[in-house]
């Protein structure tokens, strides 16, 4: 497969006036997500985590970059592949791990699991297993902000597979028509489960689709955390100023299977390997080393900190309680 990345090479630090502290923070956030999910995959094989488990490996730059552009009062709507978004949004890792286990100390009391992470306080609205199902919700959250004169932005993440759904088109149209404060973020990892983009879309340029709805759209190198943060900051500033929705198509790649049940018969190992060499963490790490921002000691410290955080999260999940069966029907409705 040819590389159609719109931008490539070294992150463009100048756009962000990147400090060492911020750069290391971005790296650590990506590393946290990668390591958390690697641990989740192990726990899955140990049958501690069940159900579906969709890993974000290779796509970490998108959640990390976009979240940096958001304020605490902004809203986030994500997908079933949302561990990275939850971590980058600041949901505590221990409660996320407890949710992966299905324990009642989890962010959704254990009722949602991997695909349904919620945190109302952090305005993190999950966590939807229906492709494109969260996009209308994001439009509605933004409508509420607009109608209540709040200068808040709703960031809505989805994959390129969502672009084939009616909900995507209906939502983009509504957001543009009503000039709603939505930041649409398409994580184009080229495969809707096992179906390649070329095999499912007549127009494979997703940003162009969005532009058809009069939404200013840009295609980005989804492996470049700096480019993503810069583009997201610019878009959020415009949205907050009343400019209506913006659309970022982040071209990326999923290094691991769609879910733990996926034998990956639809793509070559060589293709995966080639993309791994362009991976967001690998590239950013090399660049930080080259520019002298990352030394071996700092790298070791980051890894150790993350390892400790994950170990504590696993302990928290292991020692957590199951929700009593008597609570089974709590919260179906407020009143009986």
């Amino acid at each position: 497969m040819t590389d159609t990345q719109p931008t490539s090479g070294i992150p463009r630090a100048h756009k962000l006036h990147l400090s060492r502290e911020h750069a290391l923070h971005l790296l650590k956030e990506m590393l946290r997500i990668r390591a958390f999910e690697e641990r989740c995959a192990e726990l899955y094989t140990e049958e501690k985590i069940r159900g579906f488990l969709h890993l974000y490996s290779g796509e970490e730059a998108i959640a990390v970059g976009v979240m940096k552009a958001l304020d605490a009062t902004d809203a986030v709507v994500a997908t079933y592949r949302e561990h990275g978004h939850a971590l980058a949004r600041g949901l505590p890792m221990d409660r996320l791990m407890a949710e992966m286990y299905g324990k009642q100390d989890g962010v959704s009391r254990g009722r949602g699991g991997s695909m349904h992470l919620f945190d109302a306080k952090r305005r993190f609205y999950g966590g939807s297993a229906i492709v494109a199902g969260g996009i209308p919700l994001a439009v509605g959250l933004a409508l509420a902000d607009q109608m209540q004169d709040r200068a808040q932005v709703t960031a809505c993440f989805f994959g390129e597979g969502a672009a084939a759904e009616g909900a995507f088109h209906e939502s983009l149209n509504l957001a543009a028509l009503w000039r709603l404060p939505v930041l649409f973020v398409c994580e184009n990892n080229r495969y809707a489960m096992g179906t390649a983009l070329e095999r499912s879309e007549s127009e494979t340029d997703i940003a162009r689709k969005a532009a058809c709805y009069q939404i200013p759209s840009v295609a980005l190198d989804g492996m470049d955390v700096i480019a993503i943060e810069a583009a997201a900051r610019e878009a959020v500033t415009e949205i907050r100023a009343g400019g209506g929705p913006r659309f970022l198509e982040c071209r990326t790649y999923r290094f691991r299977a769609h879910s733990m049940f996926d034998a990956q018969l639809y793509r070559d190992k060589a293709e995966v390997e080639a993309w791994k060499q362009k991976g967001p963490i690998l590239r950013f790490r090399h660049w930080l080393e080259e520019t002298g921002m990352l030394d071996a000691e700092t790298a070791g410290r980051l890894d150790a900190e993350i390892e400790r955080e994950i170990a504590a999260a696993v302990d928290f999940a292991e020692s957590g309680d199951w929700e009593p069966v008597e609570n089974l029907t709590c919260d179906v409705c407020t009143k009986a």
Partner: protein
Amino acid sequence: MSGQTIHTTYRGAVRAAIRDALDRDERVFLMGEDVGRYGGCYAVSKGLYDDYGPERIRDTPLSECGFTGAGIGAAMGGMRPIVEIMTVNFSLLALDQIVNNAATLRHMSGGQLSVPVVIRMATGAGKQLAAQHSHSLEAWYAHVPGLKVAAPATLEDARGMLWSALEDPDPVVLFEHVMLYNREGDLAADAGPVPITGAAVRREGTDVSLITYGGCLFKTLDAAEALAADGISAEVIDLRSLRPLDDATVVASVAKTHRAVVIDEGWRTGSLAAEVSARIMEQAFWELDAPVGRVCSTEVPIPYPKHLEDAAVPQAPDIIAAAKTALAR
């Protein structure tokens, strides 16, 4: 009660309810296809656009999934949306948002999220609109935990259920039968909110319980009147709330009459009538002197010609016949 009444229609009562809600709470707005400039497909919102403006009487594109989902999102964002879906058949295009999002979010988020949206839609046959515009799919929605479903049949309920539905922190689906919009009657001038839960006994009787809701209520009351002429005292129960069902009112009636017929414009298979019948069997089996009867729509896509449409949906003579069967008369 002041004792004063106004003469109005079901349509007018729903409109008054929307107006009242808009006046009570600035977070309330109405959204849907042609609710604004056009005045609503069934003219329910006529005049509201001029009085409340395009922000609060919000015309939407033909995007049932998109705008219903947006209503759900706006409810989570602190608004109190009234989403009007033109008819229940169109609501199938929004079913994903209602069933997968509105109904699940509170429980799935561990009780963190609330979806105080109200979704109104027209339902039912009777206007010769043929197979794709004549469904009664209330049972589908009543099947889903996390939703509340109600069917206002009377002027009082048309006027009063909306505000209670808006005050409810959970998603509420309101079904307005198309044949009710033109019904006229007197309504108390100071009519206000009524609960969206609980069944109502619309006519007291001792021989048989006729249990129904929505568009079939007045056919059932007509049947009860005809039965009275034959010396049969029928009690008529209006379920009002389709989820949750008010078992207590139904069981109390059956304990008195010992016979029950359920009248439901939905298709028989998997119908609300089936559910009500099963609950009577579970909770009042030893009270029964006869099998529970059902009058439902014939299992056919509703046809266009008047005589066939009439034959497909429950009519008063069918109800009378079913009541007499229950009484072995």
